[in-house]
């Protein structure tokens, strides 16, 4: 999520889904919203009914395209070129929202003299180290001119840079920087203020936007060559289509109108994904579409709690609340160094120490004291990239002993799934918790490419999981909204919640280690681990729950929310729960498991994730609870002009009320609630005092939206068009630099890459999701009601390609990539068509990624074709684009796969209990 973080400050969708209905123009790109998020798509259709324009830019004509007013087909992986074309159009025709851009973005900020653009250096920015394939922003002059830290290394920084831009290096190479900096630039991107000027940030500015090194002019220069004609050449569309889309966006932006951009994994699963999203952020900042109703960038996440699982991360390099996992280097050795390193003097990150100390108190309880630095040393350190992709490579090499798969299916869903299966075969033991025997649970016996079971050493444990209605807890949806789901009934048999497994495993391990005096065991022995129910839990129908050992997860959410260690709640006698992160302390008197979620459980019996009240307020503040602090539109200070008045009546959301001396409006202000619009920070102000009254992006040290991003994106301050790692054409813009210079490769015999265009693999492939299935299939291919809707693996291709290869509609075809080959039925359709790119014809195919070898329907694993490469920011693979060859016929070799489960037309034929025959389901009346 640094794509959004680098532009705005937080890596999350800026607005809420229902707000799409308030939009005047919606651009869907990298998102097939009608198919992947059908219910969310209800809102743009409401906008369309009012007259809003819907635009879909996509390689395939999909069910989303069918509903949109404009559809533009582009080549997979050419998104930055297209967006660059839009940015260029806005700048060349001076269609940007001038007042907004000047006041709320860093357009006027002047960048260091040493900075050189890709235009100057043939496709790389200054500061590039070709050997390490990474940038050193410090050397490249990516910082601002005139910032306070100039010439002064801050304590704790290992390679401090004059502008405060510090690149931290961990031993053993770069590690995926998923988190730090996500929320505005902790770690490396401080631009502390120098003087008390009347502009936020205090750096050198040119209010006329004419200085050649100001962000605005740099941006203009960077995108000058992205003309409609050049873009069309790269994307394979017509120049008029670029202009048409740009015009629609421009016409629907400004004081009175707003447009929204919607993306999903069609943007993220690229080695340039972070930069594609950055480009959207730049475009929206230029058009003034941030922090306003119907504006912003809507990230459509793929899983029920994918936002939640980065907020409270099950990620190797993050601690809860986007704090970086400590690294094995000097800058993180003790707590104060870490805080000095990762905090920022201005903006909200000035509170970093409060977040960290409260987290350590939540985890280690009384064992964490100021004297022992709150047991900071107990946290494991990272010394390289331990994300899924490199870790499975290690696994395949036999370096990993044991692994837990909790509702995950890498044997079917992992990029280069064959390598993932090889990894599982080389484990000593594997724990799988799921509802069904998935591809990953059965990899040792059903994988078509593996040896017979007698040749697989892995010991496998399968724990049957509870379904969602059989447990309680909260999901964080795509709009940062925490929603609690109640438990309706007990799970059957030995099925248990994942919380049950982890909680009881923790208890068993604590027992196994009991009495140990070894230093390494103290973190476990002192881990706070008490989530017992106060009273035996009951089900909603009043009967007692029969599941023993289930943890009380509302206590877990209370711990996440945080509590005081000095005050008690008068009604219960328990520690007082915190009302929000403003109450956090850095002296060890508060405990809080995830600071950004603080406020979700402000009092006993008051779980705000469980709020289900409707009001006449359009943002619905009492339905669930959104982080941060229940704000539904982030950066909503932008919805008022610098003087605090709404830009227009039609688009008002938040404004300054002089009488009440505070910000008012339907939404919670994402801003200090009583900082007036004309407040200018005094010299040497720190923390939130350093954010001026017209600086809406409070997670940014200068309070501004970043057109030019000195960080945290590791692959450059401006999005630049690079070809995907595998592409049938060269880079028209920068011939010497075809792919992104910072892409990380993990090559090997199981992971071959076609680096250059090759006649062996002339076709471009794109994977995609169908409405009727889910991910690699564990939640859909065991369900007959879904299977009958899409019963078989297929590949979509154009009639032209089919004719060329002698492939018949409905017949079989084989797709080969450098990693593997699959067979599938052919779906020959005009929804795909060949594109003219740089003078040559490029064919594209679409491959759904839902099938595998376990389930009621089985089929080829699309991910057997994808590669294991990683973007430098978040170790994201490039599942959305790779090259292949397509031929008619079937694969040689083993017989066709058979389903591992028989077709079960009915879920159950048992009668509904306590119900007369006349009220039984009609399907049972037969």
């Amino acid at each position, binding site marked *: 999520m640094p794509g959004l973080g680098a532009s705005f400050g937080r890596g999350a969708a800026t607005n809420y889904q229902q707000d799409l209905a308030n939009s005047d123009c919606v651009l869907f790109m990298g998102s097939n919203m*009608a*198919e992947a998020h*059908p*219910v969310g*798509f*209800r809102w743009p*259709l409401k906008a369309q*009914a009012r*007259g809003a324009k819907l635009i879909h830019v996509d390689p395939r*004509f999909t*069910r*989303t*395209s*069918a*509903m949109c007013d404009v*559809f533009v*087909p582009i080549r997979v992986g050419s998104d930055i070129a297209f967006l660059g074309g839009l940015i260029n159009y806005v700048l060349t025709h001076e269609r940007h929202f001038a007042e907004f851009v000047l006041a709320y973005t860093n357009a006027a900020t002047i960048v260091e003299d040493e900075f050189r653009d890709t235009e100057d250096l043939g496709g790389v920015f200054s500061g590039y180290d070709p050997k390490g394939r990474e940038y050193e922003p410090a050397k490249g002059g990516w910082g601002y001119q005139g910032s306070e830290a100039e010439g002064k290394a801050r304590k704790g920084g290992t390679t401090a840079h004059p502008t405060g831009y510090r690149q931290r290096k961990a031993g053993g190479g770069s590690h995926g920087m998923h988190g730090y900096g996500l929320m505005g630039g902790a770690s490396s991107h401080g631009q502390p203020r120098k003087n008390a000027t009347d502009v936020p940030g205090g750096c050198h500015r040119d209010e006329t936007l004419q200085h050649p090194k100001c962000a605005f002019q740099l941006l203009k220069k960077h995108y000058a060559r992205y003309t409609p004609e050049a873009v069309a050449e790269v994307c394979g569309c017509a120049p008029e289509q670029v202009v048409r889309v740009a015009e629609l966006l421009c016409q629907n932006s400004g004081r009175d109108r707003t447009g929204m951009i919607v993306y999903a994994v069609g943007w993220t699963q690229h080695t340039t994904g972070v930069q594609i999203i950055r480009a959207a952020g730049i475009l929206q900042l230029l058009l003034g579409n941030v922090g306003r109703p119907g504006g912003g960038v809507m990230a459509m996440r793929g899983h029920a709690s994918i936002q939640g699982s980065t907020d409270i991360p099950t990620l190797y390099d993050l601690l809860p609340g986007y704090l970086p996992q400590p690294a094995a280097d000097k800058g993180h050795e003790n707590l104060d160094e870490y805080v000095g390193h990762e905090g920022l003097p201005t903006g909200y990150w000035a509170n970093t120490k409060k977040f960290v100390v409260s987290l350590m108190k939540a985890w280690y309880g009384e064992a964490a004291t100021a004297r022992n630095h709150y047991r900071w040393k107990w946290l494991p350190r990272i010394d390289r990239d331990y994300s899924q992709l490199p870790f499975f490579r290690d696994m395949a090499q036999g370096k990993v002993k044991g692994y837990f798969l909790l509702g995950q299916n890498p044997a079917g869903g992992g990029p280069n799934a064959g390598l993932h299966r090889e990894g599982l075969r080389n484990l000593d033991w594997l724990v799988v918790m799921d509802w069904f025997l998935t591809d990953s649970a059965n990899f040792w016996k059903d994988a078509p490419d593996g040896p017979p079971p007698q040749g697989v050493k892995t010991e496998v444990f399968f724990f049957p999981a509870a379904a969602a209605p059989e447990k309680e807890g909260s999901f964080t949806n795509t709009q940062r909204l925490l929603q609690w789901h109640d438990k309706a009934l007990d799970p059957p048999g030995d099925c248990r919640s994942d919380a049950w497994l982890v909680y009881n495993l923790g208890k068993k391990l604590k027992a196994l280690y009991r009495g140990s005096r070894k230093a390494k065991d103290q973190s476990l022995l002192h881990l706070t681990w008490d989530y017992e129910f106060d009273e035996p839990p009951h089900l909603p129908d009043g009967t007692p729950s029969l599941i023993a050992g289930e943890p009380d997860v509302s206590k877990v959410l209370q711990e996440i929310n945080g509590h005081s260690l000095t005050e008690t709640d008068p009604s219960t006698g328990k520690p007082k729960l915190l009302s929000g992160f403003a109450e956090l302390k850095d002296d060890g008197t508060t405990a809080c498991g995830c600071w950004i979620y603080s406020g979700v459980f402000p009092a006993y019996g008051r779980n705000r994730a469980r709020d289900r009240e409707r009001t006449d307020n359009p943002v619905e503040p009492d339905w669930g609870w959104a982080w941060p602090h229940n704000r539904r539109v982030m950066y909503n200070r932008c919805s008022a002009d610098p003087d605090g008045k709404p830009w227009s009546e039609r688009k008002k959301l938040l404004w300054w009320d002089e009488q009440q001396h505070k910000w008012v409006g339907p939404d919670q202000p994402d801003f200090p609630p009583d900082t007036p619009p004309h407040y200018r920070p005094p010299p040497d102000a720190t923390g939130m005092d350093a954010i001026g009254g017209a600086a809406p992006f409070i997670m940014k040290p200068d309070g501004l939206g970043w057109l030019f991003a000195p960080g945290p994106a590791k692959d450059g301050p401006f999005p630049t068009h690079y070809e995907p790692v595998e592409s049938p054409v060269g880079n028209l813009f920068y011939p010497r630099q075809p792919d992104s210079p910072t892409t990380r490769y993990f090559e090997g015999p199981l992971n071959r890459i076609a680096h250059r265009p090759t006649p062996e693999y002339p076709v471009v492939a794109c994977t995609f999701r*169908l*409405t*009727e299935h889910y991910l690699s299939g564990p939640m859909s291919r065991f369900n*007959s*009601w*879904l*299977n*009958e*809707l*899409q*019963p*078989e693996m*297929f590949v979509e291709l154009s009639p032209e390609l089919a004719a060329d290869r002698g492939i018949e*509609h*409905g017949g079989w075809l084989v797709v080969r990539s450098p990693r593997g080959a699959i067979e599938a*039925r052919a*779906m020959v*359709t*005009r*929804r795909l068509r060949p594109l003219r790119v740089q003078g040559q014809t490029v064919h594209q195919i679409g491959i759904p990624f839902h099938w595998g070898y376990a389930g*009621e*329907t089985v089929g080829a694993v699309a991910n057997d074709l994808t590669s294991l490469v990683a973007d430098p920011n978040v170790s994201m693979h490039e599942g959305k684009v790779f090259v292949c060859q397509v031929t008619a016929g079937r694969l040689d070799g083993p017989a066709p796969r058979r389903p591992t489960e028989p*077709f079960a*037309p*009915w*879920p*159950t*034929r048992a009668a509904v209990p306590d119900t007369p025959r006349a*009220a039984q*389901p*009609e*399907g*049972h*009346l*037969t």
Partner: protein
Amino acid sequence: MIPLAVLTDIAAELPNAFPPRRTPVPDADADEVMGFFTDATLCIGCKACEVACKQWNQLPADGLEFTGYSYDNTKHLGATTWRHVAFKEKITPDFGKWLMVSDVCKHCAAAPCQQSCPTGSIVYNEFGSVYVQPDICNGCGYCVVACPFGVIDRSMIDGHAHKCTLCFDRQTEGMEPACAKSCPTDSIQFGPIKQLRERARERVERLHEQGRADAYLYGADSVGDYGPLHSFFLLEDHPHEYNLPVAPPQPLRNQAPRYAAGLAVGAALAAVAAFVFGRAARAAP
């Protein structure tokens, strides 16, 4: 000895054979008659209606067949598929249209299935919808051939005829049918049919204003031999493209001429017989 259970079963069935009383139902054009308005311009082809219907009614999945008809793999309505989403790709060089619509029983005001049912199984219920009483149906199949929309079908599982009930059971509790409730884009709307027709006409007007001149209603007024259907559609292309009949015939319409023709043939045969046998009789000695 006949087991007691069988006797009680027979006793329980007896009132069905001779309904002791008949239930009053609303007239075809009454205000309380409920129906569906299915708007193809809002259909995203997600098939939520199909699954919601199967879930609520606990109907079985029909089987696994990759048809290649665009994204349609359930093919048509049937005894165990009461909502069906049809797909038609009409893609031109400038990328035309991908038509989608959710088909369903039309709950005709003068339903041929109901007219053809010899057992009284098919009735109008108190919401004005056509309902097959599964405990009465004997599986004769007359209704299957009578329906010009290809809606009703006989199940191979129990041999009885089944189709959409307009969620009769839900309506008794004031709940809307499962498909309409689930539809993410409100392409399927449920309500008093008169109100729906008004709403649909407004929608067509608005679409025309927005430049979508092809939008029109199918079945809101008469179509083919039928008066207004209780489940009608907003389409943007020829009905054929959505797999709907352009002029659905009413089988009953043929009944009188066929009876007349039958009578005429009978009379003619009788005349011929009279003539032949009369002559023969006369010729007899």
